[in-house]
């Protein structure tokens, strides 16, 4: 199995997706960003570090294919490569699932570092989905990463937690260049009416570069329940994730482009609803 991953001397970019606050969309963003990078031809591994409260396999629709988990790897029962689950559609994306029966204390930051080290030569990108909170699970998820994506929503509670997490990341040795902000669940209509914090408000509150702005969308809920990441479901949000992936690859795509999607979305939605209604009749 190891043979098919061989990539010469190159090492994967290791990213952790974290937030502090729960429920802001870490897992959804990890899954969709992973799918997008894989669609662009990158070899991607997703690691679910939320041991005991795993979700990533569900979002990816791989729940029934998991044989070994992260804990089996850490406890030496299998090699990391053997525990990876290949995605059904995207054949160059793999998942290392978390164990649901274990606890976060059964894994140490050193275990995670060793695990990622074994995988880093086989992939272009390794995305680690961090649990909420700032305790052991957070430290496990963060320690092997080179770069951190801090997810926040335009709410003061999420921003305050993001600030705390950024402070902790700084203590871990991350700097302004290796911490990027992703603003999730933005409602352009509410921003226009002045009822929601704008990306500039958030940017100045957290003093960090914004990597991406993801508009709020019901499609995400529908897709999650189907076990198909939004970007594979052919909805308008796809281009937002493509923009974020391109920025990770080093391309300078203006952040303003992210919200363009949802401006058109009203129009798109109109048609979608029109057809849906007719069909129902």
């Amino acid at each position, binding site marked *: 199995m190891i043979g098919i991953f061989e990539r010469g001397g190159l090492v994967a970019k290791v990213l952790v997706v974290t937030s502090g606050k729960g429920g802001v969309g870490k897992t959804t963003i990890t899954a969709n960003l992973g799918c997008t990078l894989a669609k662009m031809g990158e070899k991607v591994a997703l690691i679910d570090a939320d041991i005991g409260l795993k979700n990533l396999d569900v979002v990816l629709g791989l729940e029934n294919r998991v044989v070994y988990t992260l804990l089996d790897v850490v406890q030496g029962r299998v090699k990391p490569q053997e525990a990876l689950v290949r995605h059904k559609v995207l054949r160059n994306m793999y998942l290392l699932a978390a164990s649901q029966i274990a606890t976060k204390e059964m894994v140490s930051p050193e275990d995670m570092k060793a695990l990622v080290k074994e995988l880093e030569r086989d992939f272009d990108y390794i995305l680690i989905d961090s649990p909420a909170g700032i305790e052991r699970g957070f430290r496990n998820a963060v320690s092997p990463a080179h770069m951190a994506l801090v997810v926040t929503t335009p709410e003061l509670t999420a921003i*305050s937690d993001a*600030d*705390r997490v*950024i*402070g*902790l990341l*700084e203590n871990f040795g991350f700097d302004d260049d290796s911490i990027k902000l992703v603003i999730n669940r933005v409602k352009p209509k509410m921003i226009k009416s002045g009822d929601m914090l704008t990306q500039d408000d958030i940017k100045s*509150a957290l*003093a960090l570069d914004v990597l991406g702005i993801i508009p709020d969308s019901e499609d995400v809920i529908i897709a999650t329940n189907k076990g198909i990441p939004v970007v594979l479901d052919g909805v308008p949000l796809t281009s937002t994730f493509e923009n974020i992936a391109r920025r990770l690859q080093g391309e300078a795509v203006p952040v303003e482009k992210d919200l363009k999607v949802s401006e058109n979305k009203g129009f798109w939605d109109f048609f979608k609803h029109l057809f849906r209604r007719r069909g129902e009749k």
Partner: protein
Amino acid sequence: MVDFKMTKDGLILMVEDYVSIEEILTEITDKLTQMGSFFTKGDEVALFIENHSKHVQDIPKMISRIKDFGLSVSRILVGKPEESGSSSGMKVVQKGETKSGTRVIKRNIRSGQVIVHSGDVIVVGDLHKGAEIMAGGSVVIFGRAEGVIRAGLNEGYKAVIMAVDLQPTLIQISDRMTHDKGVEKVPSIAHVRAGRVVIDKWDEVDFEEVVKA
């Protein structure tokens, strides 16, 4: 555990890592009562706190307890005391401290981060909500200050707090506190006037009065 240590720089009250602040305060009281005749009013002691980052919120309590005995705290020491036989072995100077005793911080201080320094503190950056500064002297912030600022923990009412945008959740100068904020985006100065912390706009403050206080 609380104990006194004599060094060439004077007396240091050593507070070891602890769980309950109440116990430590009782121990400080016991120790000072025991040594009552040793001190005269106005004597200075330094305060060393092991693992200070865990206990920052307790520091004002310890200082006020020491003050109850008529003593003043000359310095707050943190870090690791050097173990050596001579009395001069004790060196607990904080990282980044300059000769003038001023600490300059050129970055944003984020939620959960605490700056403890026995002298003056200058921040070139913002103090975010949930962040805290504890200074023996004055605090100057070239940026927006939204966290908790405690100044004058050694220097007393002479200390001032200035910020380009002074919007803190709490201001403390020595033992006086306020939840007041400055006018948004107007550089302001907090200082003690007639036993109360007041905030003046930069162009309205009477600097002579502030300096004399």
